């Protein structure tokens, strides 16, 4: 099971945080800080796995992370997940973001964090992997965005009549 998914930049500023187990707000922030502390200390050419910090559940959990330019993508998982599989999952996630935002960069994540949540929700649900086919995900997201757009359009019409 995936316990948490965190994205933060090289200075530790959180860009996305999703927890699949209930933690209080304070604990969540502490976990983000602790994870950043652990991950930022790592060299460039070491493995992508870290034993988890004290806060997010102790020795059974691992941090699996990838560093892309200015962003760290960190998945905190328990021992039932395949480590190499999660690495691939992170890659699929990033590639999907790339497809939805067209050459995604940190600014996209900053200004559209709700969209990132929506994309993530199509891939991971309740801490389990839902869908890994990029095309399926992108199709769904586009359909939902269209739905949203159609609603705002309807709402604006009455005012135009005034």
């Amino acid at each position: 099971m995936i316990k948490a998914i965190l994205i933060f930049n090289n200075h530790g500023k959180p860009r996305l945080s999703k927890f699949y187990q209930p933690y209080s707000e304070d604990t969540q922030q502490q976990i983000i800080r602790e994870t950043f502390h652990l991950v930022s200390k790592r060299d460039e050419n070491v493995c992508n796995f870290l034993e988890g910090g004290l806060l997010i559940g102790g020795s059974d959990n691992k941090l699996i992370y990838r560093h892309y330019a200015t962003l760290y993508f960190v998945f905190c998982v328990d021992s039932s997940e395949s480590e190499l599989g999660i690495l691939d999952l992170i890659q699929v996630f990033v590639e999907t973001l790339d497809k939805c935002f067209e050459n995604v960069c940190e600014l996209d994540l900053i200004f559209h964090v709700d969209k990132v949540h929506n994309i993530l929700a199509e891939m991971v649900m309740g801490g389990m992997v839902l869908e890994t086919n990029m095309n399926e995900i992108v199709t769904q997201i586009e359909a939902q965005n269209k739905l949203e757009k159609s609603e705002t359009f309807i709402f604006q019409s009455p005012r135009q009549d005034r």
Partner: protein
Amino acid sequence: MVASSSSLKLQDLIQEIREAKTQAQEREVIQKECAHIRASFRDGDPLHRHRQLAKLLYVHLLGYPAHFGQMECLKLIASPRFTDKRVGYLGAMLLLDERQDAHLLITNSIKTDLSQGIQAVQGLALCTLSATGSAEMCRDLATEVEKLLLQPSAYVRKKAVLTAVHMIRKVPELSDIFLPPCAQLLHEHHHGILLGTITLITELCERSPAALKHFRKMVPQLVHILRTLVTTGYSKEHSISGVSDPFLQVQILRLLRILGRNHEESSETMNDLLAQVATNTDTSRNAGNAVLFETVLTIMDIRSAAGLRVLAVNILGRFLLNTDRNIRYVALTSLLRLVQSDHSAVQRHRPTVVECLREPDGSLSRRALELSLALVNSSNVQAMIQELQGFLESCPPDLQADCASGILLAAERFAPTKRWHIDTTLRVLTTAGTHVRDDAVASLTQLIGGAQELHAYSVRRLYSALAEDLSQQPLVQAATWCIGEYGDLLLEGSCEETEPLQVEEEEVLALLERVLQSHMSLPATRGYALTALVKLSTRLRGDNNRIRQVVSIYRSCLDVELQQRAVEYNTLFQKYDHVRAAILEKIPLVERGGSQVDEEAKESKETAQLSEAAPVPTEPQASKLLDLLDLLDGPSGDAQHPRPLDPTPGSALIHLLNLPCAPPPPAPIPNLKVFEREGLQLDLSFVRPPGTPTLLLITVTATNTSGGDVTHFICQAAVPKSFQLQLQAPSGDTVPAQGGLPMTQLLRILNPKKAPLRLKLRLTYNHFGQSVQEIFEVNNLPVEAWQ
């Protein structure tokens, strides 16, 4: 109504926050905006509610409070618009976990959306349910989700399946509902549904042996699905680096592992396929390796053919040599899982594992350490410990504790000779003394005590080690104990096994005195040293003047434990000299599993009363009171309790007089009134005795001007960790009414770090027929109390 013009759009808010140059500025912007958002929520503007909530969720990400948006999530979820629901459900997942009161209120909305919503809306509802659904909600909505498993839309079905997994985790009885549909779901072609189904079946099998038996019938089908995936040519849809849907493959392999465990027939069925995957998978990319690892683990866990097992372990061995560190990490992890069941197979790779100890990568060396320790056996123990000792000398500090205790444990289990054992322990204590467990000293003394032929050897080696380095406390403790016991062997005769060592009596005494005086020595260590000195008085041939002098000095030591010992030993020299020799004879061997010693060590590290064999009166009241005083949080203090004495006031006073502490001289520090309730008043008066700058004496005085007596009065105190606190027994536990005789209690506080004093008090008493409990921190403590 248009939203107030000073309220920002989400993008603008983000922009403004980014432009803030300092944390304070950012806080200001956010607080201003939150005020607008709160106003907007109050005014109930439905048009822009989703935008307001989106902004709130953004500041929540940054760590600012957002709980006032919880009810808005509910309103948005209930709205008919998809835009509103989308943000509302997201907000529910972020703000409304199951510990919030408002959590249950979304149940109805979810129910409606599940049964009547369009696909996208059903998807939102399922997502939220699987993320934060509580047990109650799951029970309520189980049938809705079950219906959705048969929906025509693949999108909804795959989400429903995963939601079912969550529901089973929360409410295991629901397994009965979700088991039957699985058979049909396995026939699906849609990979998303298949993935979810395999996850669901895995969860069911892990929870119930009956389900496990039921699903074993599906092994052939699972094998078929996997085979199709493996042999299908390149299909763009689900492939990652040329491997068809590795996620699904890994899930199926994991399920096969569970089904084939301890079951010949199932294992038989999967054998060929596993062999095929193990040999044909492309290992040039990560995806292939992920599948291969899972295959290896499955092969090792089921009843597979011997040849296949050998193949699997060899694959792991190969991966240990891979240049990719991720692969090596996973290889080490997998080998660790196999080391119990296939010990000899893993042993073959021992040299490579030991190589990995030298990795600069902390994650890898940690795994290598665990695996190395697991591979130690009686035939390789000396070589392995040699390697591990080398590792201990250079490993990162967070691994030192594990490495040290691992070495000591392995030494205990497999030591070929006692002398080797002593040497190894000595080396560990010298290298990483500060990281060993508390019982290491006890073990060493036990070990030496039991090896009579090695007494001379041990004492000489420990003496040399001690002479070089006084800082490693466990080493110092063990060495002083040894010198105390076997000091005579140190001085006379020669020992063939060590270099010739000429030691004079005076040198030995001087060394022990250095230990006593060193600021690096813990109180417990000093205790050891003092006792060792006294023992030497019967072992050495010279006169005992020097020893008597030192013991005499410590009779007025501030540390009460040392003081007590010194006084007792002094008495031993004076009044009871005739029995001194008998008392200080060599100790007979202590039985292992001496519970007294171990429990004391665990209870308090700072004041560890690691006496050799004499049982120390344990204080069960201490731990119970400490539990009670867990309420005293904040500056987590070391709560103390009055010494267990006779409760009568008379004897308490006598005890006060017995203690050689000077009566507090009148002090210029002003008194402080700290508590007042219904006539009961508590005052504190402070005294700083002139000779001891770190000592503070506080007298708590309780007076009662009300009409009723205060009875069963207990006052407890707590201070921050850097302080040492002793409460002496109170003068009584009743404060009589109408201004009767006040009750007093003395607190002794040692403040070696001169830190600002913080004090929390806990009072319990009966007054006017009611029992009262008060906990409070004392404010306005005068600075003269601690500066």
